[in-house]
Each structure stands twice: as structure tokens, then as C-alpha cells.
């Protein structure tokens, strides 16, 4: 199948990739760009493990075709840490015990970070609603809620 050249910005770096038109953004990022943080848990947009931010909005990247990402700005879990330190959301997930097997975590943290960007002081119900598209089978979510609350508190404290 003829490949198509697309250009996208991934975690702040412009990348040019030759993709087959049926490739998803997820497989393009994982296989062609070797960023294996985002995961495929279902391939049908139901679990959220592949969550990325595209032009400021959350997407399930297993449902987005690579050509649709042409010219867009993409952030994956690999783009969150900066200057050798973790994003406060990443650190809060560790500190609150908000992770177990870790498979949902790259998508969960990207979704949580985006939630806090939009709403720096979410209520518990807003956190529950905001993360409803990201399934976690290990934690029962309690410590994830605590992690997001802790992250929000720390981000507000440092602002």
C-alpha cells in the first residue's frame, strides 16, 4: 500500500512519518516513533489506555487515523516530564499509590493532567466525571482520586 507522508509535532518535536492510511495515531506513535508509553487496551476507544492530547483535547488515539493527525500537536505520557523532573501529576500518582499494574497509567495521567489544565480545582465529582473514560482495573480508583487531588493541591501551591 502506498505510504503517505505526514508531519506532526509530538511532545514538542516536529516529526515526519510515512504512514499507511489505515494506521492509527496510536500505532504510528508506538511503532514508527518508538514511543511505547501509550497502550492499546481495547482498540475500540473504550478503555482510555491510549489517551493522548491532540491540539489541547483528549483523544483515544486508537480511534484516530494517522493522516488525521497531520499538522497537529500531540502530547503523550513521554511529553509530561520536563528538565529531568516529573510532572506534579506523575509524582502525585506515585505518592498517593494511584498506580498498580501501570498499564492504564500513561493514559490516565495524560487525562488527569488535561483535566487539571482545564480546571485547577476540581471537586471529587468533577474528577470522577473527568476520568470516567479511563478504565483502571487494579485500584478501584480511590487512590487515583487522591492522586489527582494531591496534584491539584501541589500545582496550586506552586503557582
Amino acid at each position: 500500500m502506498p505510504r503517505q507522508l505526514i508531519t506532526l509535532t509530538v511532545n514538542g518535536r516536529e516529526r515526519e512519518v510515512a504512514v499507511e492510511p489505515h494506521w492509527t495515531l496510536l500505532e504510528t506513535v508506538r511503532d514508527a516513533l518508538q514511543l511505547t508509553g501509550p497502550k492499546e487496551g481495547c482498540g475500540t476507544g473504550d478503555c482510555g489506555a491510549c489517551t493522548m492530547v491532540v491540539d489541547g483535547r483528549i483523544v483515544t488515539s486508537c480511534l484516530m487515523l494517522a493522516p488525521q493527525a497531520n499538522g497537529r500537536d500531540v502530547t503523550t505520557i513521554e511529553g509530561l516530564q520536563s528538565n529531568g523532573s516529573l510532572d506534579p501529576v506523575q509524582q502525585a500518582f506515585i505518592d498517593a499509590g494511584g498506580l498498580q499494574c501501570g498499564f492504564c497509567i500513561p493514559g490516565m495521567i495524560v487525562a488527569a493532567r488535561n483535566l487539571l489544565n482545564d480546571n485547577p480545582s476540581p471537586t471529587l465529582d468533577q474528577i470522577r466525571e473527568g476520568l470516567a473514560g479511563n478504565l483502571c482495573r487494579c485500584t478501584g480508583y480511590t487512590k487515583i482520586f487522591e492522586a489527582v487531588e494531591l496534584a491539584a493541591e501541589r500545582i496550586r501551591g506552586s503557582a
Partner: protein
Amino acid sequence: MAQETKAREDTGTDGAGHTAVGRRVTRLEGAAKVTGKTVYADDMKLPGMLHAKALYAPHAHARIKSIDTAKARAAPGVYAVITADDLPDYKRNDSNRQGLIFPDKEVLFRGQPVAAVLSEDPHVAEQAVEMIEAEFEALPAVLDAVAAMEEDSPLVREPLHDVDRSEERGHVSVETEETEQEGEPSNIASSAPFARGDVEAGFAQADVVIDRTWRSAMVHQSYIEPHSTIADYDISGELRVWTSTQAPFYIRDELAQAFGLPESRIRITATEVGGGFGGKIYLTELMVAALAIAVQRPVKYIMSRKDDMLAGTPAPYAHIELKTGMKRDGTLTALQSRLIYDSGAFPGAPMLPGCMLIGGYYRCDNIDIKGYEVLTNKVSVGALRAPGAHNATFAIESQMDMMANELGLDPLEVRLKNAVGEGDPMPNGQAYPAIGLRECLEAIADSDVWRRRREVEATPNRGVGLAVGGWLGGLQPASAIVCLNADGTLNVTVGSADITGSNTSFQQIVAEVLKVPLDMVNVETGDTRTAPYAGMSAGSKTVYTVGRAVKEAAEDVRQQMFELAMKRLEVEPEDMEVADGQVQVKGAPDRAMTFQRFGKLSTNFGAPFPVIVGRGSITARKMAPGFSAQAADVEVDPETGQVTLHGYAIAQDAGFAINPLSVEGQMQGGASQGIGIALWEEMQYDQHGRLLNANLLDYRLPTARDLPPIETIIVEVPSEEGPYGARIVGEPSIVAGAAAIGNAIDNAVGTRVDEVPITPERLLRAMGKL
């Protein structure tokens, strides 16, 4: 990235003098997981690697007439198509799901793999699967386990022989065995009776007798990472497998037997497990290894979500008939039950633990329990966190509430009155060791959810319910190695897959024994060639057994250092102690040798000391069952039948919580799965044995929106053998949810639903509104 812990900053000791165990410690591998660096099997690529996609049987039961692979083989990019005829020699056992790669005569469930296509491009492989021309002749499919027990039922399959039950024994180790199928051909794979006393006399003494049938749906473990396996085989006879498994050594042993290879030539790496819950023991590895042997190239097989739902090993449907009698004062007088577990097309249903638990929570002089493992033409089942327990517990714990209600007794008091304790017999007659069932009940009484129940009940359609649940636990030998490095830090190597934070607990144990800060200790799960043996990470036994071995290995390091220090410190080992990263003379901390000095003296050129390597090796024979009590606060919408969960609490006996942060995580995670079983999760099959909801939209898992924060109360009744008194932790938390929520719904609207999940439709039907 340094591990951040509260314990690190605080170097003091707790009341019992502990410096590292009993503290909330964050995960050793936390930074790798939050940055996406952790490598799961699907993140790996090997040079020359092929992708495998399988053709899954389209019938629940059919004779294979022909499989024509010519078109698929000819498709551009296809490297090979492998059917039963193309497989390398292996020791086939048609009686076990894991003993049969591809069938050649008959398919037994819809979704059974029958062939595989290999290609460098997974999309090519997937498309070529569609080009395989397979012809089947449909046979009668048996789908209902209860009907399958009838003498005139069609047979699910050829008779069983030499059934291998080693995997089941890894989850629960009890002194009893099932009777395997014998005599006339039948769909009953095995059965087991348990009896004591005289149930008829017991029912005659009762003031209330309840006789009901309880059903619980087939559910899927639904780990977010589907089954993922890579295998590679080279011409020298070396087999390597990287796989998402809880049981690397078990797989090694099974593959060695299957291919006649020495265990020393097989190397299994348990890659980071993206959720297992009992479902990732041994399933795809034989097929992928056989494919790699067939083509002599690395082969990767990643199940899609649909594949995993069709052809994983979910948890069984169960039909449980239960008759119980109670006296006016709350004494349980008799318990009679027939438990039928739907095993699917191969044996392996957890019927025994169901029998043990249904008669195992409460003292009762008269019991008569019969368990049946029944075959049907559905996917065969496996373990899900305390396999078989929730099904049985839903029955007994619902009925305890019903009897209490009839007699006007408090549900908590009735349970406390009858709860088993140390010395009481299980259904098989074995006596319980020290357990914390009562203590959990006392603790749940103090939970916010239970304390607020009167206030909550005052709100229409709102109610609070309670149930207990437990698990007996598995037992297996274990070993560990602790090495002192040149700089005085310590490396720990174990063979157990870390699925629950167990390596972090091992780090704490070594830091505790040697009185060093946590960051001086690192822990690695080795592969089956580099690590000392450990049993499967199943049956909640990893910290309980491997933790003991780790403790022993750290003590060995300490003893070796004491003996080596004798000349220099001029005292006997019994007059030495470890503190602050050094070996010192008791009462004279200035007469000391630092760990770093030991490191140098045991590793440098011309060093005087031998290398310091501690060894721990244990056998585990004593059970340390774990119990929990759980309370749910629900609201029912009487028009739609929707149930909203407002609060949930769990009290669980951990023996001793080595890491309360991870123990709470296990309690909350298991509780959430129990809630899923109670309200949403169900694999739905049609009359042809087709799974109707093989995706995560229609198979409904609990979401963040559904679950309130779960309140946790850790109870600590020490076990006899576990490290620092720790007992099994991982599994008991899933067990009580179905009954706790059923009881809460009954408390809210006065309606008892006898089948989980309690969907709006089932609830409205039970309320007489449909």
C-alpha cells in the same frame, strides 16, 4: 528517579520497633510506570520478529471437515500458516485447555484457536486469517451447565483422561481432592462431597429455613493489558519466552514437558503484567512457543480485546442451591448446598474452593455440600481473584441476611455469633489456624458506611448492606537471594512476578532486617534462568511465602557479616547488631564496621572476605486464610432499576500490613471488582454459544464515575508463619461485593435479587415491575 517515601524521611521506629515494615512505601517501580518507561510484552521488538494472528473457531461445537490454507499462504507478506498438521511435536493432552494447541478433529467452543498466520506485518496476518478456508460440520452445542448434568444431555466432548490440575493447586491449597469423571460418559468433569452431622436433624431444630437458588454470571478478569507473548527458539535447542504472566516457573515446567526440553534450556521472562487477577497463568505460551519452533524465528502474539474475551480463561457461571436453617437465637443449625460450576469445554472450574467457603464462614454442626464441575461448549474458565469464592459467598451471605431478617436479628450480630475462629473445622474437617473473621466484622461496625446506616435507611430507596468474604490461599515453596554490593547497597533477586507491589514489600523486609534505609535495597524479578525458584504469583501467597524467603536471605547476610566481623570487632556474633548501615557491638556503636566496608572487603582485588550472598529457601505448609467484611450504601431508582453506589467500606485482616499503602490498594481494587460482579459484569452468550459483548463498551467495567472512594480498615491478626505476621492479602477483597450489594439493595427496597449482576432489568423484574 528516586523512590519517594514517607518512611524514608522518617527514620524512627514504630511501637514494635520496626523501621521499614509496616510503613506506607511508594512503589519501587513507580517512576518507570508514570513516565511510560515500563516495558510490557507488546512494547518489545526482536530482530526478525513475526506477528501471529489466530483463526478462532466460529462454532461452539463442530467437527473440522477441512482447513484449506492455500489462499492465505499465497497472500503477499504472509510468512507461514500453521495448522495442527504443521505444528512441531509436542506432548498433547486433549483433556486440558493448555495441553492442546490446535484441534484437528473437533472444536469445543466458539473462539478456540484452530490455526495461525505469521507475517512481519500484523495487518497482513490479520487479513490473511480471513482467507483461511475452514469447513466445519456443526454438532449439538451444550450451553447450560445445569441441563448438561442430565443423563440424556448430548455430550460436550470426548471423555476426559489424565486431567492436569496443577494450575488450580497454585491458587488454593486445601487437603481435599475432587473425584474425576468416571464410569458412563457424562458432562460432569468432577465432583466433591463434604458432610458432617445430620442436616435433617439440623433443619428440624431450626426456627427459620430458607431454600433458594443463586446464580452468578460468567465474568472476565478484564486486565487492561490483553494476553501478550513473544517466543524465540534457536537451532541449539534454546527456548526463550517473554510473556505477561503471573507464573514464569510454572510455564517453564509445562513447556519443558510439552516439548521434551530440559528446564535449563528454557528461559521464561515474566514481563511487567498489565493486570492478571488469576487470568494470566499459562494460556498462550505453548502456542506461541510452538509457532516459534515451527518457523525458527521470534513470534509475537498479542490478543485483541475481542480475542481475549472470546478465548481467554474467564471466571465461571455458577448455579448454587442453598438451604440453611437457623434458631431464633441466631444459631445456624444446618447448611445444605449443591454447587454447580460451569467449566466450559475443559476442566478447571474452581468448584472446590466454592464448597470450602460456602460452609466455611460459620460454625455449623450439620452440613451437606456437593460440588460439581460441569462441562459445556463455552470457553473454558480459569481463576479470577479468589476463584469460585464470590459465587458461593453470594449465596450464603445473602441467606444469612434473609434468616436474620426473618428472625428480627441484627445482621452483624448474627454473623458475629456464628463466625468461625481458630480451631473451627472447614467443610473438609481441617481446622482453621488463627484467623480474623470476627475482628473484621467488629471493624466494619466502626466504618462510616455502617455507622451511618440508620440515617441512610431513613431516606426512601436507600439502604446499607453487609457481607463477609474470604480466601484460604495457596502454598508453594519459595527462595530468594540477597547480595551485598561493593558500596554496601543490597540487591535482592526473586523469581516471583510482581503483580501487587510485592517487590516493594521485599525491599522493606530487607531494609528492616538489616536496618538500612530503603534506598540501599533494590529488588529484581529475574527470569527462570537467573532467579531462584518461586511459585506462581497466585493464591495471594507471594509476600506470605517469598517474603519469608527474602527475610531469611537478609538474615543470612546479617549472620555472614557478624561472623566475618568477629576478628575485627573482637566479640561473638550474638553480641553484635545492625544499625544505621553498620554492624556494631551491642551497646557500643563506635565499635563498628559499615556495610560499605564489608562490601569493599568482600569484592576488591585481594580482598580478605568471601563475597557476601544471603540465601533464603522455605517451604510453606501452614495456611493463613484472609477474611474481609464489607458494607455498601446504595440507592435504587424504583422507576428505572438503576442502582447508585453512595459509599463502600472494607475491613480486611492482613495479618500484618508490611506496606499499608499497597494493602489498601489491594483492598480497594478487589472491592471494586466485587462491585462490578454485583452490578454490571456479565459475559452474555446467545443460544448458539456466541459471545454477544466481546468488548469493553458492552461488557461493562466499573468506571471512575460509578465508584465512590472506598473506605479501608486494615485489621491485623498475625499469621503463624508469614513475615512479621503477614497473611494473604490480594484476593479476599473481591469476595463479598456481590452479597454486600445484594443485601444493601434488599435493605433499600425490600427486594431480593438472586442473580448477579443485579441489572436494572433483573431488579425491576424482582420488584414486580416488569
